[in-house]
């Protein structure tokens, strides 16, 4: 597959750069004269870079802002502040034809394969719809052939082009969603929880398909998930989000073997490991309480209310996501250290 317009394709160069992205949803009061009484800080200053051909995993619990981040990147939401550049062009300033070209380059795979496909459209129409919006992507008369190629690419039978979504299983529907995302030959695919609605045996098939497509087409993924085991398997680099912020970011190895942020350490220790022998040997960190409301996050470090290391400074000073003495990858903790000290 050839990607549109770009001249040089160097694997490893930065393709998407996100700078201090903020999205606050206003909370209003009053019927006629609405006034803003607060804001849900869904995404509160997120920066990262995505390189060509790599997978960036974004993990976090519900309400941490990872899906809002995906919607921002797709320009389904307008950011409150901050910016992003895709191949050097401003993602949020583009409009009209330029926006259409940018969107072509970045596509999305949704979580729920049952609601993200129109039940009244055939698979051919669903996968072919992007060509109606971008007629130049498929020369006249070649649409059907392209759709069949795409079906074949994601491991579905090309003869099933006239079937409807309900005739497919969950895993097959997710493949249809992936085929639709691939239709315009994008370079970046934002995957928002692409396998969390699937059974274990089907989940592995879809993960393997995503990896295989990445190898063949040189795609870059932003892979959003709550399942840390899945992310470890597919991601090259991982960003951990908590209450709208990235608290730690690094290579797969840095996050899973050398995490320095207490939230990452707690998250990792809470993941159930399918090995009964490890039952009593694991050093468990049990967080107390729930994630605070993003409408009213704690002052300073957002995690301090659940953190066993919290000191006075954590309530006052917001820790930056910068390299720490414990390990050179960025971590947003004043007391970053490699070995987790177990909470008292």
């Amino acid at each position, binding site marked *: 597959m050839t990607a549109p317009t770009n001249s040089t394709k160097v694997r490893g160069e930065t393709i998407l750069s996100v700078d201090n992205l903020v999205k606050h949803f206003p909370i209003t009061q009053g019927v006629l004269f609405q006034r803003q009484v607060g804001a849900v800080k869904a995404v509160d200053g997120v920066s990262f870079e995505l390189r060509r051909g790599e997978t960036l995993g974004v993990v976090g*619990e*519900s309400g941490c802002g990872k899906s809002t981040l995906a919607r921002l990147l797709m320009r389904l939401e307008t950011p409150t502040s901050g910016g992003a550049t895709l191949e050097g062009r401003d993602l949020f300033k583009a409009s009209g034809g330029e926006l259409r070209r940018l969107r072509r380059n970045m596509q999305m795979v949704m979580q729920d394969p049952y609601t993200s496909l129109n039940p009244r459209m055939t698979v051919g129409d669903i996968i072919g719809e992007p060509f109606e919006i971008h007629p130049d992507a498929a020369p006249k008369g070649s649409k059907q052939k392209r759709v069949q190629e795409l079906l074949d690419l994601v491991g579905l039978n090309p003869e099933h082009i006239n079937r409807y979504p309900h005739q497919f*299983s969950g*895993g*097959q529907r997710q493949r249809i969603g992936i085929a639709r995302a691939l239709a315009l030959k994008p370079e970046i695919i934002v995957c928002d929880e692409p396998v969390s609605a699937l*059974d*274990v*045996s*089907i*989940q*592995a*098939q879809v*993960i*393997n398909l995503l990896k295989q497509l990445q190898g063949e087409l040189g795609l870059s993924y932003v892979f959003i998930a*709550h*399942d*840390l*085991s*899945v992310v*470890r*398997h*597919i991601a090259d680099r991982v960003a951990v989000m908590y209450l709208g912020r990235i608290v730690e970011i690094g290579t*797969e190895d840095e996050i*899973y073997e050398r995490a320095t942020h207490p939230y990452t350490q*707690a*998250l*990792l220790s*809470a*993941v*159930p*490991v*399918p*090995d*009964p*022998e*490890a*039952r009593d040997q694991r050093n*468990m960190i*049990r*967080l*107390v309480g*729930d*994630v605070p409301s993003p409408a009213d996050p704690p002052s300073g470090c957002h995690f301090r209310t659940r953190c066993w290391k919290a000191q006075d400074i954590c309530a006052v000073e917001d820790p930056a996501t910068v390299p720490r003495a414990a390990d050179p990858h960025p971590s947003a903790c004043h007391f970053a250290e490699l070995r987790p000290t177990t909470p008292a």
Partner: protein
Amino acid sequence: MTHSTVEPTPASATPEGGHLLELRDLHVEFRTNEGVAQVINGVSYHLDAGETLAVLGESGSGKSVTAQAIMGILDTPPAFVRSGQILYRGQDLLTQSEEQRRQVRGQEIAMIFQDALSALNPVFPVGWQIGETLRQRAGMSRADARRRAIELMDLVKIPGAAKRIGDYPHQFSGGMRQRVMIAMALALEPKVLIADEPTTALDVTVQAQIMDLLADLRRELNMAMILITHDLGVVAGVADRIAVMYAGRIVEHADVRSLYKAPAHPYTKGLLESIPRLDVRGQELSTIKGLPPNLMHIPSGCPFHPRCPYVQQVCVDVVPHDLVLGDGRTSACHFAQEVRDDSAH
């Protein structure tokens, strides 16, 4: 929990040598307009006092329907129990009257569900909902029921129970709602708790809290627990024994350690190899090819044969019976010995 006024059921003693709860060759079918789906096809398992049995399976394997049959809350129609026995302390629940089953439900066997938000009534305060069981079934006064509801909320570690008793379900977080539902299930001090995917809708840090709570409560109250889940990680953490279900059958049954060490059914083996693991790096994920069967047209012979790497002609022709492998392990596979030896290294 000593001051309950709940009367003991007639058959309160387990017969000598019998199990607390035992399913024998249970068959359940769904009769729909499109045809008859064989959802449960001869499930047998047992549960002893104080132990945790995990029932593992993917969607459509029949794990939840089995639990609904035990509780007597199947949706009839379309669901019908075709044959089989569900013995609780030696008495067959399926032959009992609705009134007798009502006495067992809640008081002897209680159940918690995956989605606490839809299991709780949104228009009543949680304290009232926990107390309802106590008023209706244990004949408590409103004041007594309220006091007991606060104790139960304390038991499941809801902070500030006395203050939160008047709150409505939507005012609680997901993890706290799950605790409310656990408190309701424990109100009549059941001997068996069935937990149907209790943590599937929760985040990992909250999931860990709830699994710890369930394990502690089971020990404290000396309950037996049936944990229904699709998550091999959760099972490894808490279960004593596992029954793996596929297409309405139990394909493998073993104690938890030997099953993870050397699965003896190709389906279990495939499942274990297809999950990405947090503690293993750079592994290649193997997959189970194909899809689970349509329950209206279950394949002949072994229902797993179209997806199985060990398949031979005998698998297509003959339904495999449980092969006893020693240590109480069984596997419904013609090549169980071979599969286990392959998995062992």
